[in-house]
């Protein structure tokens, strides 16, 4: 026996959205190869499935749309070739279904609470059982069965599980799509004393039914992850203590304990992972629609959509990615005519790729379009007074491209009618940074542009290098670290009033750890010093000084008040011996530096 509930609707919605995503992707392909029988058959099959799913929940509108398209597609399946008309119809159908899905009632965010509005839209029918009936739970079960023969039950209060355990008073509340039907039907039940619509003002919340899989509030997962983080820390503290005591009988237990904690941490991290395909699959359709509007011809290739990332990270990068793709289509790629004049293929190409590198995720968006002209960037910077004419010669390519990350920076003097001026890279940068990542850009005139986003796998556990200075430990997020090495004072020199170092023919600005942290520790002469090469948004610099103290996976905790007011740190973590350790905000550091430089 099946009880319809919010869980089913949510499942239906999720699964249908996935199907629509797939449809959007493969229909774009079908549009290019109208005689691809395999895709036509797949599209047909998906609509067939959607129809069945919608019908079983009584969503007749979705069912009808799917059914119509299924029927039409059947004809084309036999013909072996589709035409532009049916493709347009399918796209329209997808959009309609998408809109209908959006309107379906689902539990707020992660299904824990439901809004008063939702309760009002679908009120419960309250069934009051007669006082003297025997086995009221069994009577409730019979009533539920009768209702289910007529209409789908969305929710029950008390739940079926509770009813089964005999936990029921005289009131049974049922929520379904056609409450009037129930009311009419119940009138003929001898055991029912009264039946009416529930007063929606009543605050009693519905209890979730007996469902095997449960969905969890993301906040709960955050808390779980936090607690595991604490466990990891206390475990390593315990290890330290036990190691000092040297008690052998503790060691075995401790090892088991360590293993369990590690495993628990892994499980919780994995629970939060979702595949990038959830957003990547939307790009194909998006690019198709946008390129049509702009009268451009664009092919998009997507790689690595099976890579999984933390759920909150995925939410964080969805908008920046769309911005970047929009920019690539509208500003990066030329029109087919322009491209032919340049001896390029008239169809422009956009590539979205994701890969995981050393525990970080690298997402790149490339186009083979115009590229960004350095000279234009330089002129735009000049117009905005960001650079003097005499400085033109001294600026490196990287330094010039860095202007692109300035707030509101644009090389276009006028906004485009359709796509506006394009979303500035500073907006993208801000969004990406909020999830602990960084953005880089490479571009070549007439060859195209690649924007790279480097992201940590998770926002709350990050890999860090530890540097010690004056008996204090500091952590540097590895996401921004390009390499680590040791250097001596010999490689240091001064250039235009700034300390720099030479690394394989590259001049890197130098940041002394003691300066960053405003410590007055002296340089240790000409001994080997740790050097961390940082790369953020096309900016490379070196952090020199302190002592390497290894690396670790740090559980990031927000800074407690009042030290959260101090700029320059993203959070705090604990190291094995229980000592707190500040995590440097490397991107912010860079801005503090340039700020100080312009100030001086």
């Amino acid at each position, binding site marked *: 026996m099946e009880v319809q509930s919010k869980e089913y609707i949510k499942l239906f919605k999720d699964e249908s959205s996935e199907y629509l995503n797939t449809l959007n992707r493969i229909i774009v392909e079908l549009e290019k190869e109208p005689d691809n029988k395999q895709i036509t058959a797949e599209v047909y099959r998906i609509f067939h499935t959607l129809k069945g799913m919608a019908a079983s929940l009584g969503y007749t509108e979705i069912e009808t749309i799917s059914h119509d398209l299924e029927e039409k597609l059947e004809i084309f399946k036999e013909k072996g070739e589709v035409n532009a008309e049916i493709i347009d119809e399918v796209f329209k159908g997808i959009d309609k279904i998408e809109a209908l899905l959006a309107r379906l009632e689902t539990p707020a965010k992660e299904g824990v609470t439901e809004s008063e509005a939702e309760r009002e839209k679908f009120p419960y029918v309250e069934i009051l059982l007669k006082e003297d009936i025997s086995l009221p739970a*069994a009577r409730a*079960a*019979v009533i539920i*069965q009768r209702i289910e023969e007529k209409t789908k039950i969305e929710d029950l209060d008390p739940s079926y599980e509770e009813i089964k355990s*005999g936990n029921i008073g005289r009131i049974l509340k049922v929520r379904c799509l056609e409450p009037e039907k129930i009311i009419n039907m119940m009138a003929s039940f001898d055991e029912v004393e009264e039946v009416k619509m529930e007063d929606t003002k009543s605050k009693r919340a519905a209890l979730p039914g007996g469902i095997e899989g449960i969905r969890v509030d993301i906040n709960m997962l955050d808390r779980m992850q936090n607690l595991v983080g604490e466990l990891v820390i206390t475990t390593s503290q315990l290890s330290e203590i036990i190691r000092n005591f040297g008690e052998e009988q503790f060691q075995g237990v401790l090892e088991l304990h360590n293993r369990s904690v590690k495993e628990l941490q892994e499980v919780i991290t994995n629970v939060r992972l979702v595949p990038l395909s959830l957003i990547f699959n939307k790009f194909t359709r998006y690019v198709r629609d946008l390129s049509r509007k702009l009268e451009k011809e664009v092919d998009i290739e997507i790689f690595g959509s099976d890579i999984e990332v933390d759920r909150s990270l995925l939410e964080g990068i969805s908008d920046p990615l769309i911005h970047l793709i929009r920019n690539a289509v509208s500003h990066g790629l030329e029109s087919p005519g322009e491209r032919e004049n340049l001896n390029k293929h008239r169809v422009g190409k956009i590539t979205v790729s994701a890969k995981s590198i050393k525990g970080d995720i690298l997402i790149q968006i490339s186009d083979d379009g115009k590229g960004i002209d350095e000279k234009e960037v330089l002129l735009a910077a000049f117009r905005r007074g960001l650079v003097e004419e005499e400085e033109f010669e001294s600026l490196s390519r990287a330094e010039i491209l860095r202007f692109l990350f300035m707030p509101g920076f644009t090389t276009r003097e006028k906004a485009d009618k359709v796509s506006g001026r394009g979303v500035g890279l500073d907006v993208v940068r801000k969004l990406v940074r909020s999830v602990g990542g960084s953005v880089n850009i490479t571009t070549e005139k007439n060859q195209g542009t690649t924007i790279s986003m480097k992201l940590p796998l998770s926002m709350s556990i990050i890999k860090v290098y530890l540097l010690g200075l004056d008996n204090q430990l500091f952590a540097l997020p590895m996401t921004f670290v390009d390499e680590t090495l040791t250097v001596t004072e010999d490689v240091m020199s001064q250039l235009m009033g700034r300390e720099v170092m030479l690394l394989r023919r590259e001049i890197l600005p130098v940041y002394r750890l003691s300066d960053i942290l405003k410590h007055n520790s002296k340089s240790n002469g000409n001994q080997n010093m740790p050097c961390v090469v940082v790369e953020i948004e096309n900016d490379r610099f070196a952090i020199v000084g302190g002592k390497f103290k290894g690396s670790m996976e740090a559980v990031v905790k927000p800074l407690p008040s009042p030290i959260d007011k101090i700029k320059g740190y993203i959070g705090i973590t604990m190291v094995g011996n229980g000592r707190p350790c500040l995590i440097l905000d490397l991107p912010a550091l860079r801005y503090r530096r340039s700020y100080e430089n312009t100030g001086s």
Partner: protein
Amino acid sequence: MSARILVVDDAIFMRKMLADILQRGGYEICDEAGNGSEAVQKYEKVRPDLVTMDIIMPDMSGIDAIKKIKELDSEAKIVVVSAMGHQSLVVEAIQAGAKDYVVKPFQPSRVIEAVQRVLKL
């Protein structure tokens, strides 16, 4: 033609009592069974219009018998006849597909009402 009913109960006394009540109500008792597996066999053979089913029986419980009968005939109409105090079993029986229930000790009118109601479905 009056509806044909299969009466299932492990106690002969209960079978007799139920049969009497039902016959007096104008129904035909087409067969009787003393346990679950017998009930399934007889159901297949005689295809009654309705079954009254005890829950606690040797050799195959009423709930399992309901499930088996439902597999044979998803439209099967079954009324559970159960003792007081077995509420969760009755709920389970209904989940398994029984259409209604009567509680022992029963008043004859209750039995007839339940049977009438289910036959009308």
